[in-house]
């Protein structure tokens, strides 16, 4: 695995430790509701980060903390949102899976975002040529019909839509084999939409592969499906994992730490301190207030 810059590794580990902190807070009863961590998938939004521009829209889903942190260096605001404290990104109304900030939006209903992103892409094509709409979806979400209606529209109208599939082999408790006939590649092909599968987690390598493809979406607008073969290391939400520990997939960080122990230890320590400090500070804040109903 190529050596990461300190900056990339710091972001990856910020996401990793942020998610671990959430699970710990849940266990202590300091959080309620539900929260979906992206443990194991942190490198997906981090890889895409320099390929996306400020005028792009990003549509995230239920498993969106990494997407948000790769877009905004704002773990405080995100944690405040999840804990319902002052300074929350959306006043504590949306919570973990309903965020909106500038051109970033997430929603907790699967499949909803693709048609919406298609509409945004239609706007961008005319008002901001070169900008695109990026949508994160899981493999399970390909069960929803809205996904196909959107793909059809996007291809028909040649819209700058980047569909990022985080194929982690499972949807909640259901392995992909039990919920998907055929493949993501085959489905993209059925619409004549370009598809690229990304194996591995080498950030530099992924960027190199994807940079020209993403650029193409900008210059010759048309949808593109990028499918990351990835691994969900943690539970779907909180402590609901019924998989045996050896079936949870591979951890990029274990591999990276083995290859670059010195850098990993140094940056992990710094990220850990930062997350601990933020968690303490946010927990001490007063509850969020919500005025706009």
């Amino acid at each position: 695995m190529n050596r990461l810059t300190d900056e990339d590794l710091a972001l990856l580990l910020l996401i990793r430790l942020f998610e671990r902190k959430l699970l710990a807070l849940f266990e202590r009863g300091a959080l309620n509701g539900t929260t979906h961590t992206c443990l194991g998938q942190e490198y997906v939004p981090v890889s895409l980060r320099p390929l996306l521009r400020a005028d792009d829209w990003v549509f995230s889903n239920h498993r969106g903390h990494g997407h948000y942190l790769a877009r905004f260096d704002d773990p405080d605001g995100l944690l405040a949102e999840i804990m319902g404290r002052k300074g929350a990104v959306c006043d504590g109304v949306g919570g973990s899976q309903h965020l909106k900030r500038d051109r970033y939006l997430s929603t907790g209903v699967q499949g909803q975002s693709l048609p919406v992103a298609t509409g945004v892409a239609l706007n961008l094509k005319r008002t901001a040529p070169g900008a695109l709409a990026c949508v994160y979806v899981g493999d399970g979400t390909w069960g929803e019909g809205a996904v196909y209606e959107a793909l059809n529209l996007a291809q028909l109208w040649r819209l700058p839509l980047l569909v990022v599939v985080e194929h982690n082999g499972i949807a909640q408790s259901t392995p992909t084999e039990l919920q998907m006939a055929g493949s993501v590649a085959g489905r993209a092909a059925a619409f004549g939409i370009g598809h690229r599968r990304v194996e591995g987690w080498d950030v530099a390598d992924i960027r190199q592969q994807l940079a020209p493809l993403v650029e193409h979406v900008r210059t010759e607008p048309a949808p593109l499906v990028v499918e990351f073969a990835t691994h969900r290391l943690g539970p779907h939400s909180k402590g609901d994992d019924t998989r045996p520990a050896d079936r949870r997939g591979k951890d990029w960080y274990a591999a990276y730490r083995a290859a670059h122990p010195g850098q990993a230890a140094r940056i992990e320590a710094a990220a850990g301190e930062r997350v601990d400090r933020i968690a303490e500070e946010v927990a001490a804040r007063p509850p969020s207030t919500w005025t706009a109903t």
Partner: protein
Amino acid sequence: MRVGENLNQALHGLLGDDPSVYVLGEDLLDPYGGAFKITRGLSARFPGRVLTTPLSEGAIVGAASGLALAGDKAIVEIMFGDFAALAFDQIVNFASKSVSMYGHRVPMPMVIRCPSGGNRGYGPTHSQNLQKHFVGVPGLSLFEMSPFHDNRAVLDRMLASARPCLLFEDKVLYTRGMYEVDDLFAWELAGDVAVVRPDLPAAGADYALIAPGGVAHRAVAAMRWLLLEHDLAGTLYVPSQLYPFDVSGLLPALGAAGLVCVAEDGSAGGTWGSHVAAELHTRLWGSLKRPVRLVSSADGVIPTAPHLERDVVLQDTTIRRAVLEALHG
């Protein structure tokens, strides 16, 4: 026994007794057993008739209609009732219409289970009570789970009706005790309606509450407080079937009550409760002591943060305030 276990056992019993019953839904295979564990143990006992599905609410409900058309019976679990919206077309424009739009009656024995409601911090798209969106659809019946109504009897009744039915299940109720009520109160079933009143002779006419099963505990908590703090003794009526809802049997008691209050948990505006209130005004005009009082959750989205959610979602305090205000001004 908890209400959730009662429902789980009802499904076990139904699948065991009737080989034409299917159960479809997301993530319901063992050992997971569904997001709320209501289908636990079913897939191991009845493989082939208990099917886990992709995330495809529209298709699942459509498939349930197909099973029903072909002579089977189907029970669908919508993981969060909010997602019944993704099956709205299949429910409203196909399943319900099919009962009568072909000129002769087409039996459509199917039940769509909708875990509903807030007070759990799940946020705006995972906490709603969507009952109001399904009220008044020809051919469609709405039921709500309650701590008083045995779920097996309710399921049997819904399937026997041969109409598509939605069963709303308050998620908080799953972990509450079945058949249990506050020690100051007693309850009995009068037909479809559970009647809860103070465990005292001839008490309970100060006011009448009508509430679906998911609101029952909040209603009883309010009644306890009203009894102890204000010496007001009321009676609670909890119907199992919300729509169509025949109020005829309740009219004598409601007409004699000092106040009738309908308490429901959906967001205010165009609701089941307003439908019931309108019906009561019409039928009891002249004998009602006061206008029927309606309490719902606020007309707003349900926030995720617990302190904000509490202000929006109907609480026991909302009910007791409404009753006091109506009676004492």
